[in-house]
């Protein structure tokens, strides 16, 4: 196993040293190219809330242009890890990190890192839908406007494209001027997806993007992930094993803050190395 989750006790780090990496066995999926370059790499990366270590000394490379799923029981630190990648935890005063987390060769928590630049590059859809209390149009257009798109025509096209990608266009095309808070929970979540897509990030962090959606909308989001695969690096947190195995190339399994196992999805689901992983994916505990 080339990409491994190192439990914090193990000192021999294999995963993060890309020079040592061999080409791992591609998962049984023709679209997964062999090998890969790390896009985000964690080295002894921990996240603390005060004294509580919510993510414990994670060592892992998230590969560029692949879809990586993060699974694990509730409260195991999935969201915390995801939010750690675009420094969303900075908002929480008691939260701090140790170790390093690199993105494109730059230390995410480095002193000179511009978090605004970083967050433009690393878009995020949050676990709870959080549209702005503005019109649907403004919700989507806000990001592009921020980054300098002024032309009305371009904005309109961008809004339509993003909404179409997020499978929301048909439902809202006649009421783009209405307040986004009037949408249903699932629609709001898709709006948030569209809002993130509109800024065109390199990395997409999706925190349970489909937990509030019906099967049809879920399928559309999964189609979207399918479509984006290969052009974006995607991390998706999900409680749905089927979804993880359907959409992802790699899967990380977290348990109580530890990254227990990180492997090609097929391998993790068919032949887990760790007993806890097996218990979890077979539903023996939750």
């Amino acid at each position, binding site marked *: 196993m080339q990409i491994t989750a190192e439990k914090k006790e193990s000192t021999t780090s294999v995963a993060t040293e890309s020079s040592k990496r061999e080409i791992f066995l591609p998962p049984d999926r023709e679209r997964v190219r062999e090998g890969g370059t790390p896009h985000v790499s964690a080295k002894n990366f921990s996240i603390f809330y005060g004294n509580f270590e919510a993510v414990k000394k994670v060592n892992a490379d998230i590969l560029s242009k692949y879809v990586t799923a993060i699974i694990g029981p509730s409260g195991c630190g999935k969201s915390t890890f995801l939010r750690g990648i*675009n420094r*969303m935890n900075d*908002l929480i*005063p008691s939260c701090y990190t140790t170790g390093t987390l690199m993105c494109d060769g730059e230390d995410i928590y480095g002193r000179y890192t511009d*978090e*605004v*630049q970083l*967050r*433009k590059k690393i*878009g*995020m859809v*949050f676990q*709870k839908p*959080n*549209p*702005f*209390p*503005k019109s649907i149009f403004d919700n989507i257009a*806000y*990001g592009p406007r*921020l*980054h300098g798109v002024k032309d009305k025509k371009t904005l309109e096209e961008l809004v339509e494209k993003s909404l179409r990608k997020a499978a929301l266009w048909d439902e809202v095309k006649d009421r783009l001027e209405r*307040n986004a808070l009037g949408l249903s929970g699932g629609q709001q979540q898709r709006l*948030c997806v569209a*809002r*993130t897509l*509109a*800024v065109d990030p390199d990395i997409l962090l999706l925190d349970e993007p489909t937990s509030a959606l019906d099967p049809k909308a879920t399928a559309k989001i999964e189609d979207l992930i399918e479509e984006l695969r290969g052009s974006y690096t995607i991390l998706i947190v999900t409680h749905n094993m089927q979804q993880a195995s359907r959409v992802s190339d790699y899967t990380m399994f977290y348990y109580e803050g530890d990254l227990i196992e990180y492997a090609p999805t097929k391998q993790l689901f068919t032949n887990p190395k760790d007993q806890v992983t097996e218990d979890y994916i077979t539903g023996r505990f939750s």
Partner: protein
Amino acid sequence: MNNSSTKNGSRNAGRTIDIVNKGLKRRYRKEKRFRLYGILSIAASAAFLAFLLTSIVMNGYSAFLQTCIRLDVPIEAGMIDESNPKRSDFQGIIKSAIREYYPDVTERREKRELYSLFSSGAAYQLRNNVLDNPPEAGATLSLWVLADDDVDMLMKGHMKRDVPESERRLNDRQLRWIEKLENDDRIEKRFNTTFFTSGDSREPELAGIWGAVRGSFYTMLVTLALSFPIGIAAAVYLEEFAPKNLATDFIEVNINNLAAVPSIVFGLLGLAVFLNFFGMPRSTPLVGGIVLMLMTLPTIIIASRAALKAVPPSIREAALGVGSSKLQVVSSHVLPLALPGMLTGTIIGMAQALGETAPLLMIGMVAFIVDIPGGFTDPAAVMPVQIYLWADSPERAFVEKTSAAIMVLLGFLIAMNALAVVMRKKFERRW
């Protein structure tokens, strides 16, 4: 067996249901009682409010009317100074007009008593009238001149006619003169424009609230112009940008303490710093406004911080997530959402400041000021101080003025609160 078990089960269920039902009744009773308490307390406060308002209105409404006397003023040649009409002896003209109406009053003392039925403002009324449209010699002007406050009190029923002469401020002779006016339909209560257009005066019938209203207006303008931007900026900085450390904790504690400092202390501070040290002009809206700003600032900062805190963090996350800078998050998402709360806080603070007297006493705004202030550096009174001054005056006529002034003050407070509601609605619609 199967049968019995279901029976057993249903009996069990029945029992639980009974317990629940019994409990339910108690719960409903409790809820009813709770609601009753709520209604009672609201009714009690409404009753107090109603009592307060009616007593103020009952006391004060008569101040909006003022007894006037119609006086025929014959203008004879030579009475008006042709070269400079302003310098004419208007007092003399009025007196001669009064003597003409009462030809049988000749004795000096009686004359003085007679003149005292008319307000000293009558001469000014005549003066204004003459200056506005100069009469020709030989014409007779028919003027409604102000009656003295004692006459006013008599006409409004605050002074009894049937008590012994020694117990009222008007003697029998004066009563007879008034009766003559009544018989001739020359005395009536008219709308009291003086009250709304003049400043303070020693004569109740000439005293008005306008000077205090203007004073309050200028003072509030200074207070608002200073405390709103400073308060909002301080709140935004403390809430959104300041690092959370000992220094900011210290500042926070101090702000909370300042909110509880007795307002007179701010007055002393204003006296020491602004008047004595910086030598700013005494008794002026400028200094009053600054002192009230110090007093309202903690209120505004605390309310604004609460409003900022109430903005859900998910909105900040959303904005940060698409690549906003901190300032952009604050200015385009947090501030618009917090603004209604901030405005409410500001208006509450301003309403507090509008009703504040104690700190203003310290900086000399309690002085007796007749002139209507024309700017920020003119000596001025403010409404609550005016109320305080009138409430302190011995004349009976000032009692109703006090209540009327309270009504005006309440009117302003209601207007301000209405404005707050309107503004809140307006900003809410924008999102």
